[in-house]
């Protein structure tokens, strides 16, 4: 198996995720994109772990998944509250912190 494919896959996923974070207005989609980013990073970690026969890659990937799960929980909660307060989850409208 070549490393490159995994890296390429991870890069592609990462770019799609970054695109989604930066451009998409829907909050859910942004969260999903963040997942994508995290997962892309996971793939990288596992791939390099397998390459070097180091179990640290996989351990770290488990960390990442756990953190991602926590972070999504909080993110969803924020989006939910956002919806409840504003009836919309359009991120471009959320600029109350504008200075």
């Amino acid at each position, binding site marked *: 198996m070549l490393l490159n494919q995994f890296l390429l896959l991870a890069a592609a996923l990462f770019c799609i995720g*970054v695109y989604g*974070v*930066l*451009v998409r207005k829907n909050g859910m989609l*942004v969260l999903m994109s963040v997942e994508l980013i995290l997962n892309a990073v996971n793939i990288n970690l596992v791939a390099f772990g397998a390459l070097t026969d180091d179990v640290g890659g996989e351990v770290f990937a488990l960390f990442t998944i756990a953190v991602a799960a926590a972070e999504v929980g909080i993110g969803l909660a924020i989006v939910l509250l956002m919806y409840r307060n504003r009836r919309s989850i359009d*991120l*471009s409208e*959320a*600029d*109350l*912190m*504008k*200075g």
Partner: protein
Amino acid sequence: MNALLAAALPVFTEGPSEVSSVTREANWFLENAFIIPLLPAISFLLILFFGKRMPKKGAEFGIAAVGIAFVLALITGAAWLDHRDNFDGQLSESPATGIEPAHDDHADDGHADDGHEDEGHEDEGEDEHAIGVVADDGSTSSDEVALAVEAEGDGHGEEGHAYVAVQNSTQWLQSGGIEFSAGTLVDGLSVMMLFVVTLISLLVHIYSTDYVSGDRRYTHFFAFLSLFTASMLFFVLSDNILQMIVGWELVGVCSFALIGHWWEEKPNSDAALKAFLTNRVGDVGLLVGMITLFFAAGGGQTFDTLSITNTINQGGVSHTALVVAAAALMAAVMSKSGQFILHTWLPDAMAGPTPVSALIHAATMVVAGIYMVARLYPVFWEGMQIPGSSINLLATVGAVTLVGAGLLAFVQTDIKKVLAYSTVSQLGYMAMALGVGAWTAAVFHLFTHAFFKANLFLGSGSVAHAVHSFDMKKDMGGMRTFMPQTYKTFIIGSVALAGVFPLAGFWSKDEILVGTGGWGIFGGTGGPGSYTFHLTMGMIGAALTAAYMTRCVYLTFHGEYRGGDHGHDDDHAHAHDDAAHHGDPHESGPRILYPLYILSGFSILIGLVNLPPGFQLVPESWQERFLHFIEPAGASYFPAVGHATPSWSLAIISSLIAFGGAGLAYWYYFVKVDGLARSTGQKLTELPNGLVTTNAWARAGHKVLVEKYYLDHLYTGIIAGATKGPIARAANWTNTHLIDGVVNTAGETAVRTGRQVYDKIDQGLIEGFINGSGRVSDATGQELRRINSGKVQNYAAILFAGAAILAGAFIVILAL
């Protein structure tokens, strides 16, 4: 007093035994002559402080002081005669010279209202005067010379010097190496002046008790009379030129105060100011002249009169300095002694009370200038080159004065003004006499003139006292019926003035004419120069004098009485108690008449003291008494003034000329005018003025005279008016607009510059910086604000971008 005696003792203890005790005691008076001015000075202070409370309002002090001063003056005069004779007796042929100032330790001063400290310092520097030829007493001559040179505080020339002036001085102060001393100088000239001043002052004092009685400022009047007498005596006894300046100014101030005695009326205060200021102009010359003499003569820097005259006479002073000094002093003489062209104050000074006019402006103050010239004669003798020439400034000014003033006397209606111009004219005689070298004649004329002029003035006062006016044409006339005594004395005075034999004026005036040396016909000449022009002027003057006095006498005493029917009080407005009796003039009281009698007596007799030599009708010992005692002939400080031999022909011709003038006037007035008045029944004031109305030239001439040669216009109108008017205003304008303008402009420019600086630079530039920096910060901030959009995605974008850049940088650095 003890000091005085102790100091006088050397006189007693030394000297040969031939010196009589009379001489010794007499010498005391000569040395202590300072007492004479001191007495009136003390009386001035007493009157000032206590006068109002005294029963006679202070006049007692004045009369007492002047009376005692007169007595002392007589005694001093007698002492002088004795002194002069005593040494004269030991003389051989050639007159000797020698001045030995007697220096004693006691303080003396003519000016006495002070607690003057007694320095007791002897003026040693001035003792060693150049001594001329000593009386050839044979073997003792060298001793006498030696003694004279070393003389210090010991006897004055008992060793046989022919002529000794007695000087007594003490140091007053010292400054910067220059010594100022005060002292008295007693010689013939001073003694004569003492006599004149004290006598006339005494008579005027007595006269004033009647004339000025009831006046609003009676006490003040007497106070100033005393002060004046003291000042004049102080001046006359001066032994140094600084003291002369002091006395000169003091008499000027007294004159100012007395002329302006009734200062409530502006013409009087105007006259007083005019007198003072005109004299001040002359004083410029006095100061310059005296200062020049101080530095140039006297062998160094000294004020001592005798030193100065001595060195000049010995020929040790540069001619330029003498010319400058003489010219400068001429200005002083011109103002004080009323010479043309500074004479204009004298007629106006008649605004003062008549006794003042008699005392000051006839007999004493105005002769101060003549006295000064006489005292400092070598200055003029050398400076103006009097001997041997035929014209010089002093003589010519005198000649012009005497004729010019004489002409002016013709057009006056005020009797005092006639007399004033007459005084100016006579002063011109004296000045001319000094200018031609006839020193004794001038001084003698001064002497005689004092008496008859005072007589005339007091007489006019007597008349005015009766009619309350001085205007002859309007208010007088026919007074001889009302006031016979006054009339008689006035006539005597006029005749004396006109110079009729044998009254006083004849002798003195004739001596002057002879002295001009311009008369060569029929023998009689030999004066110092040959001043023919001046002789002519003198003769014309004699004619004029006789003529205007005749006119004056006629207008006042003859004809019909014109006054009384208009309630016209004269503009001298003296408060007279019985002012009610206008139309009823009467003879004056004894206090007015007795002085008149005394003065008339003198006018008649006084001429006889200087009978000319060669006057065959009297014994020789009676001849030239005045000259003998007064003229310092042969003294080392007096030039060798030659004397002209008197000439009968001149005397006769000048008398004829005088009679001619009088006769012409007599004919005109007494015959023609009087007849006209009688025939037409018109009053004199309404008569046509004869020639003047018909002839244009006469009218023009008359106008010029009435306008006093337009000099007053020149002085008061043009010079004084310009100075205090346009010129002063120009100076003030320069001050306010130019100089102050510079200052104010400087201030304004400063303010404007400040404002500019403030606005442009401070507010503009500097504030600009500061404000600008603020604005820049603000703008930058505004710009940077836009990063905070509030949108999460933007923040995320920045985050990613930043991270990507950092990563890239990291890789690049790792790669390197």
